[in-house]
């Protein structure tokens, strides 16, 4: 799976670390890291939680072009 740089960019725009986002959505930092590196495909529930925390839509963060 390709890396998800959009999550990283959205996180950086809000000045949030991986740990901050992970704690906000209820996962570990390592899981957040795996999602950003494309090593783990999150469930739709987790995707929605991440979108809510970062203030983005599912398309903006997870749609593959």
């Amino acid at each position, binding site marked *: 799976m390709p890396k998800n740089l959009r999550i990283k960019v959205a996180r950086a725009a809000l000045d949030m*670390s991986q*740990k901050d986002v992970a704690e906000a959505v209820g996962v*570990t*930092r*390592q899981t957040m890291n795996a999602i950003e590196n494309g090593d783990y495909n*999150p469930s739709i529930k987790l995707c929605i939680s991440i979108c809510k925390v970062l203030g983005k839509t599912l398309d903006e963060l997870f749609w593959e072009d």
Partner: protein
Amino acid sequence: MKQSDKFDERQLMERGKIFMQAFLLLALLVFIDSFVKTLGLIWTDYFGSSLITIMSVTCFASIKLILKDSYKGKNVGSWNAVVILITVVSILNILKSALDLITGGDSFVKNSQLSSGGALAISNLFLLLIAIVYWLKTHMDKKAEKLMD
């Protein structure tokens, strides 16, 4: 608290995969042990073979879980306490076994078979290996977090 509350979805998935692998490994080792004993090669007593089989599978699964960041859940503090206990107990037991060996109080091999003391020593080595991998991984994770910040 539900098990799913302690681990996130990725960790639960990894744990499921690794526990299945551990179960298959356990079945394989039990089969190999019984096959070897049927051939007449009594390498240790029932206690020793059970202990080594279970501890080797535990070691395999624990190390895989640690490397996949699925060993400890969200409450890191309590896991650290457990691993500290494992570290201390395994070191103390290994030192005791070494002392017994040096003073001649016990031997690892008796009548060409691994003794119970030997089986216990090997089990403690497995426990210590788990602890070493855990602390190394924790140290590496802390370094990675500092680099990210």
